[in-house]
């Protein structure tokens, strides 16, 4: 039993975890990017400038993919109906949850890499040099995903966590100018690449977002290690 539950090289285990996460959650980043491409096509059709189109395409990667992963994270944590059973198994619940989130992030990463490669190949890429392209989406994904996890665990509510993530995302979009112009808030601005390019302070911003995301994840994992800490969809 223990071998089956802990053999991370087993495709069966990953297939099972992937099914537990669900098609909808795993497809959310791809679906959100598809909507972004549709809006980009609208913009191009309406005579949008090349700069606007490139910025919009980059927004899909930097803003939309992290949002999709964050909201899907809330769902993955809260949808498990067998948590009590997990607590009786010889594998820590947080390990199982980690595997499930890995399948979610893996699907999002594959989507983001294919999307970035397609933009580079077609000449629509306006971000940093191609090898650094993951820096466009990984830091905001970690920061927003970490926020989603901590809000879900602490708030114990799908609504609270989803609303918190949504409000943070919208507030960063609405107050982009003031967040990017202040030295104190610029490192924590999620959408620096698509809004203001890779100029001054970009690397510091990516570093600060990554560290913030990892810290939030570490706190969430610590909190989840307590038995019964994770909320369910009806614990609202």
């Amino acid at each position, binding site marked *: 039993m223990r071998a089956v539950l802990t053999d991370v090289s087993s495709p069966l285990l990953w297939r099972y975890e992937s099914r537990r996460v669900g098609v*909808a959650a795993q497809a959310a980043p791809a679906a*959100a990017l598809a909507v972004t491409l549709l809006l980009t096509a609208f913009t191009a059709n309406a005579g949008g400038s090349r700069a606007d189109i490139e910025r919009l395409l980059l927004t899909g990667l930097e803003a939309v993919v992290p949002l999709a992963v964050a*909201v899907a994270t809330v769902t993955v944590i809260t949808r498990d109906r067998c948590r009590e059973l997990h607590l009786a198994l010889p594998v820590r619940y947080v390990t199982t949850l980690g595997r499930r989130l890995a399948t979610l992030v893996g699907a999002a990463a594959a989507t983001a890499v294919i999307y970035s490669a397609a933009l580079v190949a077609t000449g629509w890429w306006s971000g940093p040099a191609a090898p650094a392209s993951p820096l466009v989406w990984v830091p905001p994904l970690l920061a927003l995903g970490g926020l989603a996890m901590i809000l879900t665990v602490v708030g114990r509510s799908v609504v609270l966590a989803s*609303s918190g993530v*949504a409000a943070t995302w*919208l507030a960063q979009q609405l107050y982009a100018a003031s967040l990017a112009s202040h030295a104190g808030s610029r490192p924590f601005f999620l959408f620096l690449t698509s809004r203001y390019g890779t100029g001054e302070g970009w690397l510091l911003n990516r570093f600060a977002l990554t560290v913030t995301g990892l810290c939030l994840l570490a706190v969430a994992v610590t909190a989840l290690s307590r038995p019964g800490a994770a909320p369910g969809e*009806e614990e609202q």
Partner: protein
Amino acid sequence: MIRYEFLMQIRKRSLWISMGLLAVITVLGQGDAGPRYLPDDASARVVASSWAFLWSLLLPIVAGMVLADRLVRDDRLGVSRLLESLPTTATTRVMGRFLGALAATATPIFLATVIAGGAESISREDPAVLLWTPIAFGLVLLPGLVFVGAFAMVVPLLLTAPLFRVLFVGYWFWGNMLGPSYMPSLAGTLLTPVGDYTASWLLGERALYAGADGWLQLLRPEPNGVTAALSVALLLGVGLIPLLVGSRVLARRATA
């Protein structure tokens, strides 16, 4: 059914906490153009409308998140078949749930509007602000809440709740706050649930993008009393469409 749905929703702690936190953030982050910085001689109508419009920027997001699981949870809890056995039609069930849940979800927003109106009424020594508060709520906030609530309840039946929540946040930004000059957007049209037209009419100046040139020019008339009424009618009318679709979907599932 409306009463039960209302009571079930109004007791949800997450509804009150989410609305409360977001209301505080909205007040603190309103900026120089916010209602807190209106001149002392601003009319009661302008003050009440400014607050209603400020709430309409972000609080409906929570409404959408809360309402997104009201119909899909029946399947999750395994009570769909039980509900289908009741002597009511699918339309009655959908409408009952919609009205009850929407009334409960709108209650914290209404309270926020009343509190802001009351505070302004006291600080400006003008009781008329409090009188204008429910009017501003009914015209600026309520049609958008009906529109958002109807889609939030029914679309997850077709897309699942997590996917709906992702797309809803993106839609809210694109369809309300993204300037129509940047890209084709529903922002500034009669179908803007943020209450742009009614707020512009009440304020006597453009609240956000109402009537600004852009995509679907036919839906971008100059904001005035008539077009504000048209916007309300359109939001309520289009909001009925998902409810009818939801009723059909549930009725079909019941007979499948």
